[in-house]
């Protein structure tokens, strides 16, 4: 398969690339902040999709890797003066290693049992970090203002953080696509459809699932480090919000699971909708409820998600919408 010849390969990458470039050229702080949040969700949802969309395992614990990896990276750069880039990689690596270890145990569980276990992991991790003194316990950690100086002041440090997030997002999209169009990915999708039948055909399901869990956990660790550095502090409540995991699931579902473009479209739609509702005078107080109604309608009537629906309806465009 010559993946690079597929238009579906270039479109998502080109979109993210152009998006970051436009923000850089504009050079406005507010535009950058908006784009940062949005891009962060694109990357979170896309990395979750590597597990959810390709293997069918529903994880509520994606935010654990954002939280723990982010904490670790932030710990390194605030307490040990690590460089942001290296700290972010280290945060991702920690998340990946943890996911590998956890995955060996937890991925034996199937279906809803796995989903429940990940809820437990999320709560246990939050409670543990709140009590873990090296990470500042319940109050968390702060970054010394001087830390921004080495990047030429706070303003430049924030731009650097954005650029790193941009690169990380491009990497998620790239990895997501490569996994999908590989021999490994074919095995994953066989697991998604029928795990026992896949094993009878020779797919090493336990190993394949663990590797996928590891890949999908690496990116949240990187993103977490960048996010907390941008904020200047990290605390347990911020780092392990169960609802952020669920929001990522919602985004994947909105756009279409198992598709590279799906989570991207889902993240942008969800955030856009939320932004509109939060500022609209009619819906301001009811924004959560309206978002809930919207979500329910999608699940009940468009279960394949927006991109999945278009693909199903117009088979001709399939090669453009992977």
């Amino acid at each position, binding site marked *: 398969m010559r993946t690079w010849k597929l238009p579906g390969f270039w479109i998502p990458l080109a979109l993210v690339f152009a998006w970051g470039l436009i923000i850089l050229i504009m050079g406005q702080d507010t535009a950058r902040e908006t784009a940062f949040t949005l891009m962060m969700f694109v990357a979170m949802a896309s990395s979750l999709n590597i597990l959810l969309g390709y293997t069918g395992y529903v994880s509520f614990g994606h935010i654990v890797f954002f939280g723990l990896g982010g904490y670790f990276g932030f710990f390194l750069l605030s307490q040990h003066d690590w460089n942001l880039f290296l700290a972010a990689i280290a945060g991702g690596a920690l998340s990946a290693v943890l996911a590998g270890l956890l995955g060996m145990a937890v991925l034996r569980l199937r279906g809803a049992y796995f989903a429940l276990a990940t809820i437990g992991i999320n709560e246990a991790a939050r409670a543990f970090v709140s009590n873990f003194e090296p990470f500042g316990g319940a109050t968390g950690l702060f970054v010394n203002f001087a830390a921004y100086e080495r990047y030429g002041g706070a303003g430049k440090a924030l731009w650097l953080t954005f650029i790193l997030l941009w690169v990380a997002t491009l990497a998620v999209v790239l990895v997501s696509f490569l996994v999908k169009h590989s021999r490994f990915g074919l095995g994953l999708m066989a697991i998604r459809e029928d795990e026992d039948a896949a094993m009878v055909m020779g797919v090493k399901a336990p190993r394949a699932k663990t590797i996928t869990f590891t890949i999908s956990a690496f990116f949240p660790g990187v993103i977490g480090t960048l996010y907390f550095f941008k904020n200047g502090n990290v605390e347990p409540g911020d780092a392990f919000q169960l609802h952020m995991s669920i929001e990522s699931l919602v985004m994947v579902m909105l756009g279409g699971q198992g598709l590279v473009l799906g989570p991207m479209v889902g993240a942008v739609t969800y955030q856009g909708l939320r932004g509109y509702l939060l500022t609209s005078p009619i819906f301001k107080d009811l924004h959560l409820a309206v978002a809930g109604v919207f979500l*329910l309608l999608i699940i009940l009537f468009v*279960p394949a998600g927006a991109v999945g629906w278009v693909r199903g309806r117009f088979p001709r465009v399939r090669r453009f919408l992977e």
Partner: protein
Amino acid sequence: MLGQLLSSLTDGLLLGFVYGLAAVGLSLIWGVMTVINLAHGPVIALGMFGTYLLFLKGGCNPYLALLAVAGMGLVFGFLIYGVAVHRVLNAPHLSTLLATFAVNMILIGVGTAVFTTSPHNIDFSLGSLEVGPITVPATRLVAALGAILFTAALYLFLYFTRPGKAIRAVANNRKAAELMGIPSAWILALSFGLGTMLAAVAGGLISTFFPFTILSGGPYELKSFVICVLGGLGNPLGALIGGLLLGGLEGLIPTFMPVSWVPVVEFGLFILVLLFKPSGLLGAK
């Protein structure tokens, strides 16, 4: 020291009955249709507010109000099932998880708009009971009794009435039950209704001694997950016992380590049980 331990344990166990009641509701729904109801927490919170409104605006005794709350909980469960769950029952797990979560968002959203997120409180006391070194607020004692009564009533219903037996049949094998002429859609809706009813009642009981907000259901929902797994998912009696276990742990742990470690122990135990004894501590195998 011993006195303190005993009274902390008693507190925990009494509360455990109420935790258990909420979990029985969740477990029943899982047992009948293998759906994890993520709208469980907001329903508990609505039970709190239902009792509160009837008490404050209706001048109704909170325990009488509970009966009304139970009825509303049942109807509400029917509604949730019909609107959000029925259509996706046979779809992959993610669909039912997200559908019930969407209901969660709607309830929390509307609830926040109506009640805000500031704490409410039912100003109601029955005095307290003293046995030796142990002092128990009477409201908690009554709450524990209420939880036991409702669980017992559920059992009588499941084992001695026609619809109850139908629920058990559907839980056991939905296809076979349908072949025997049991209208499974109604039975599923009824089970969901009963599950939310118990959640609402548990919320009502809690509201008689703790202040609450619309978000207060969340922690109880999480506790219900833990309890269901301890007692064996889909086993309602196991859930009540799991509730006692969790309540007891919450009573005991603070005497040995800082109270902030409680969730670490709870959720650690939860994961271990899921991994090594997924049928629950009481499960056969």
